[in-house]
């Protein structure tokens, strides 16, 4: 098993995943802050569909994923109050388009299957470069973006009351989500990307005390789950995506081992 893990073929996918897992988890924390956690699955499903459609059009998979997720971001921006009902429709559309488009060619079928299965080992240098770029962008904009997103959530009229526009931070966040989901989906697969966006944030939301700890805990859970899944998938010769999803589902039990459901006194 150790030989498998040390195989140079696995180095690039391993590093790519190690970079992406905590980023996806932290973005998931902000999606949860905005009550948009179901949007994460809609983004992931549409990014997957975009990847498959891109194959049919002889375009790069990542480009298709970014365009599809970006399209969702634009539609979301046009809806005044996008609710979970809207996201369910996007999820269904993404699933249907992915399956229909994959039927057009053998290559499309293979890409579609790998996006649904979640085969991290197929990631290449473009994924790694995109992951590095994503981290740099996140580090640069997060200090400003975080404060704006928190103010928008807890003091919704802060921006209008002070003559400030909320559009810059909303658009920046949407772009960050689009990039994160598109790269994570094309690396981990649809459901594994959704699990990374949802589960660590969900656990950290319950266990942490304080905003900074929520972010660190979510990132830590994502890295731990990723490392464990990588080893298990290699050792058991199983596709990576489902293993990661199952590991995260098992770790989610931590929520019930903590304090009782917080009640207001």
């Amino acid at each position: 098993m150790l030989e498998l893990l040390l195989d140079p073929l696995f180095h690039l996918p391993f590093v790519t995943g190690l970079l992406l897992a905590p980023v996806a988890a932290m973005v998931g924390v902000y999606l949860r802050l905005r009550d948009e956690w179901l949007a994460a699955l809609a983004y992931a499903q549409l990014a997957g569909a975009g990847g498959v459609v891109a194959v049919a059009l002889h375009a790069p998979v990542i480009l298709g994923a970014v365009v599809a997720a970006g399209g969702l971001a634009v539609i979301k921006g046009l809806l005044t109050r996008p609710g979970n009902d809207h996201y369910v429709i996007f999820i269904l559309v993404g699933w249907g388009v992915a399956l229909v488009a994959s039927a057009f060619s053998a290559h499309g079928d293979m890409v579609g299957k790998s996006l649904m299965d979640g085969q991290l080992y197929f990631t290449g240098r473009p994924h790694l470069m995109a992951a590095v770029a994503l981290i740099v962008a996140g580090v640069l904009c997060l200090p400003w973006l975080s404060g704006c997103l928190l103010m928008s959530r807890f003091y919704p009229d802060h921006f209008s009351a002070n003559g400030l526009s909320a559009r810059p931070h909303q658009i920046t966040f949407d772009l960050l989500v689009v990039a994160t989901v598109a790269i994570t989906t094309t690396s981990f697969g649809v459901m594994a990307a959704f699990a990374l966006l949802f589960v660590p944030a969900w656990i950290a939301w319950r266990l942490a005390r304080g905003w900074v700890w929520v972010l660190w805990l979510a990132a830590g859970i994502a890295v731990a789950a990723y490392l464990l899944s990588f080893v298990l998938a290699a050792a058991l010769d199983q596709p990576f995506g489902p293993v990661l999803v199952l590991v995260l589902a098992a770790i989610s039990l931590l929520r019930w081992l903590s304090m009782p459901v917080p009640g207001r006194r």
Partner: protein
Amino acid sequence: MQPLLVCGGLIAGYDRPVVGPVSFDLYAGEVVGLLGSNGAGKSTLLKALTGQARIFDGCLTRAPGLRMAHHRQQPVRPRECPLTGDDLVRLTGAGRRTPPDDVARLLDCRMDQLSGGQFQIVQIWACLGSPADLILLDEPTNNLDPEATAGLIRLIREGLGGRTLLVVSHEADFIQTVCSRVVPVSP
């Protein structure tokens, strides 16, 4: 002295007018109360000042660079929320000021573990302690027992630091105690 804010014959609402016409000026250092019965449109008037309600008629003039903080009648409080009181006061800039003891002892708690009254006090301090020039408090006595209301009055007197406060309440005694001037509001 130039007013911070001028409301002239303001009529505000949502799909249709709810309140007004209302006229008043706010000057630096004043504590002004908006007093009216339930449904008079007091909260709508505050929302019109913050751009969250529609202005149908009249004028609203703000001093250039005026910074506002708004404590809503029902502040946002998710059922499960890992943010602490400390997170909240840092967010608004109130973390730069030393909080009163009544507030300081609550700042380490998660927001979802505070009682309604405790949460209210932390929220009000997050606005009062912020660097805003004009602070809007909408029904600040909600969820407060008489002892906590007395604490709130101390908080307003000690925490305001010469800035301007516009308070909405249906409790006439509270308004008369904290405000230097009262503006009646009716639909």
